[in-house]
């Protein structure tokens, strides 16, 4: 596993995209390394939160164009980068994307497939596929539009223009912008805060928020209510409410 590395710090896993000389462009090797890293992290019971960031000056410059242009349409359609998106889709622990620099194309799609995005203030974000005569293929027209709205989404997809970290913040695409040198520390602070909660409740909360983008309001509300009942009856839910009444700190099991 060379193109994706990870380290465990307490109950946080820090995953690093590691093709710095290629601005961490996504090639098939990276896709499979990514899947393997997340499979291993999933099995690690200690880990409660995952951070993804990039080695070098980019977060991720998107698909590796030279590799992609040599793949047959059959190869791209049958496999392509789908294993990576599928891996994230079923991953239950929260994933924080910490954008350390350029985050474009598949890079922004990767960030948007995560649960929370924070950015270094020098990061630039966008979907520049249009400049290659193609369009985004992994959420760049869908997740982006649901976040920034139709008109900004349209502008970004049709012109390929990049936006700054602060503009992304104003549009709700990024929840926090920090000085470049503070990015990883801030991601770790955020991860620690989430890791201090009940892991089970965090997972059910993540699942419910994600449903909001997938369903009608009523379906989402029904789903949320069921997850709420489950947390209510869970060990941690009972402990948390008991601790609240007894005015003490809860001891989470998960």
């Amino acid at each position: 596993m060379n193109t994706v590395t990870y380290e465990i710090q307490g109950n946080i896993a820090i995953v690093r995209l590691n093709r710095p000389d290629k601005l961490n462009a996504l090639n098939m090797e990276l896709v499979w390394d990514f899947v393997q890293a997340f499979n291993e992290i999933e099995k690690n019971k200690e880990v409660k939160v995952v951070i993804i960031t990039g080695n070098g000056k980019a977060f991720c410059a998107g698909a590796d164009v030279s590799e992609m242009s040599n793949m047959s349409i059959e190869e791209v359609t049958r496999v392509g980068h789908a294993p990576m998106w599928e891996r994230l889709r079923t991953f239950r622990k929260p994933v924080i994307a910490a954008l350390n620099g350029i985050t474009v194309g598949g890079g922004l799609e990767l960030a948007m497939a995560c649960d929370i995005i924070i950015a270094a203030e020098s990061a630039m974000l966008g979907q520049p596929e249009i400049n290659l005569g193609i369009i985004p293929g992994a959420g760049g027209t869908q997740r982006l539009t649901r976040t920034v709205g139709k008109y900004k989404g349209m502008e970004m997809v049709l012109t390929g223009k990049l936006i700054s970290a602060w503009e992304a913040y104003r549009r709700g695409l990024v929840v926090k912008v920090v000085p470049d040198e503070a990015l990883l520390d801030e991601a770790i602070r955020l991860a620690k805060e989430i890791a201090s909660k009940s892991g089970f409740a965090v997972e059910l909360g993540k699942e419910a928020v994600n449903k909001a983008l997938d369903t009608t309001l009523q379906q989402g509300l029904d789903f949320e209510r069921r997850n709420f009942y489950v947390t209510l009856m869970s060990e941690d839910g009972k402990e948390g409410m008991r601790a609240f009444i007894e005015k003490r700190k809860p001891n989470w099991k998960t």
Partner: protein
Amino acid sequence: MGNEILVEDKGNISVITLNRPDKLNAMNVELRNQLTKALRDFNRDPKKRVAVITGSGRAFSVGADISSIAEDLAEDLRGSFYPILREIRFSNKIFISAVKGVVAGAGISLALATDIRYVSKDSRFVMAFHNIGLAPDTGLALMMLRLGGVKFEKFILTGGEFNSEAAKDLGFEVVDDPLSEAMKKAEEIANGAYKSYSASKRLINRVIYSDLEEFLDYESAMQGALGKTYDFKEGIKAFAEKRKPQFRGE
């Protein structure tokens, strides 16, 4: 808990005194936590209308006590400096500061966060963050530049000192006896059209401080990073050894 903070109850007015006179009221973590608690108690008490904040002894406050800083400066700021700022700034009640002697760093923030500010003629305002490799924190850059404008840019950028006369541009009123002036004003507000003052404070907050939280988030992340630099460690060491720091710019 000792008595790092004294609270005097005067009907609808409280006098909150920073009380580490031998340390020029340097804000260690106990003082910060006690101050936050005193401010919270005051804010929760429906009978209370005005708080006067002052320091015992020669100084108002020299700011953070650098002999007791946490490993992560961002956590220090978020955990125990910002709550003080919030209790004062985002309260509907009125706060008056009575400043004398030296006031430095977060001490200046504390005074600037109050709604009405009195200072003695001979006070000295000290910005010493840069001497230990840090940048101004506890909202100073935002408050100082918005209240005082471009004259204060150099103090934010590179630090330094200014006197009471210069502090007039930050809205300080220079008086002979800040505490008695503060008490007089407190009576006037507490026994006057109090709701109108409280409402006006909220208008001021909308104009000047609506993005304070976002700024503090950014500022604390920055200070957290500076707290890990060589220059910060050297600055702290030099301060303890009472010598000039040898900075490297890294």
